[in-house]
């Protein structure tokens, strides 16, 4: 019955002391929050920690949510800042896309994907693999745009950027994703031959 309530109604219920309403909110958004956290953390354990931290932070500050934006946009801004703090703690440089070290680091992370059998790999597998090779910011923008049902303005609000900057970043992220996808598919074809 509670699942029919809107996010705002669930927030009001939670603020009124009904914790079950917040459980419903967590269930509703956990999949995407976890996915977004995974774009930054790369390991499931770290992503789970980030996602959990985000929901706890959101619960603490729920009273300060004004309802001027969507709850999801507000929640994703928490995910973004928490993930950035996580990355800073991990001493990963996410600022420069040309950073040689970062590139090597990200490239190395992808080698873990190669353990699967070639015949089990589908096109979506390669796509996920390519997303895993992107820099966190690029992967987050792609995920927010395609899976988070967020407009450019909302993504900008969540990431603390102008909508136009998001537009340019989204274009570049798509280009990089396309390049990586093509490269991975070529690599796989070579291995099969």
């Amino acid at each position, binding site marked *: 019955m509670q699942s029919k309530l809107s996010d705002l109604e669930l927030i009001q219920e939670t603020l009124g002391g009904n*914790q079950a309403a*917040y*459980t419903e909110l*967590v*269930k509703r958004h*956990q*999949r*995407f929050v*976890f*996915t977004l956290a*995974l774009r930054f953390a790369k390991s*499931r354990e770290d*992503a*789970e920690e980030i*996602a*959990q931290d985000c*929901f*706890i*932070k959101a*619960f603490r500050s729920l009273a300060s949510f004004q309802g001027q934006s969507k709850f999801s946009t507000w929640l994703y801004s928490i995910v973004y800042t928490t993930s950035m703090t996580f990355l800073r703690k991990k001493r990963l440089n996410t600022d420069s896309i040309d950073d040689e070290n970062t590139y090597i680091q990200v490239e190395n992370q992808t080698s873990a994907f190669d353990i699967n059998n070639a015949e089990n790999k589908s*096109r*979506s597998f390669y*796509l*996920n693999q390519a*997303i895993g090779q992107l820099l966190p910011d690029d992967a987050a923008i*792609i*995920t927010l745009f*395609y*899976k988070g049902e967020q407009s*450019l303005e909302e993504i900008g609000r969540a990431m603390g950027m102008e909508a136009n900057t998001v*537009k340019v970043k*989204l*274009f570049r992220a*798509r*280009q990089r*994703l*396309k390049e990586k996808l093509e490269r991975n598919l070529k690599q796989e074809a070579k291995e099969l031959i």
Partner: protein
Amino acid sequence: MNIEEKLWNYIDGSCPADEQQAIRSMIASDEAVRLKYQELLDLNAEFAAIEADEPPMAFTYNVMEAIRAEQAQKPLKAAINKRIILGIALFFAITITALLVYTFAHVHLAPADINSAIPSALKTMRAQNFLTRPVVNGFVFFDVVAALFFFDAWLRRKKKLSSI
């Protein structure tokens, strides 16, 4: 802005109406643009089909448990209802006022006899009588303990703020 960027904006619907019209006619007239547009459309559909990852089964339970644990750890001063504090304050205020009213009602204020002498047996208070060594030691000990307590509370608050 290159043609690919324009096409992406067209697909997203984020370009102005006149530009949309121009791109539409380019797609219709130019074979290369049409092919590029089709390629980007396919990519867009592919990107849109990316599946979100599933968190562990116990994720919601863990979040709610963490919230419950955090709430249980709340300091007592935060858990006390402000109405109770107000009630206690009101009780004391009424009691003190009633006592003052009762006292003043029973005091007969008569003019003092100017010629009457101060009784010779009246003793003056001397601070030295009270500031004995054990009292001073006790006072210093209490101050040190209080200072350590407040310093600890300050450090905890600082740590909590930095973790947010």
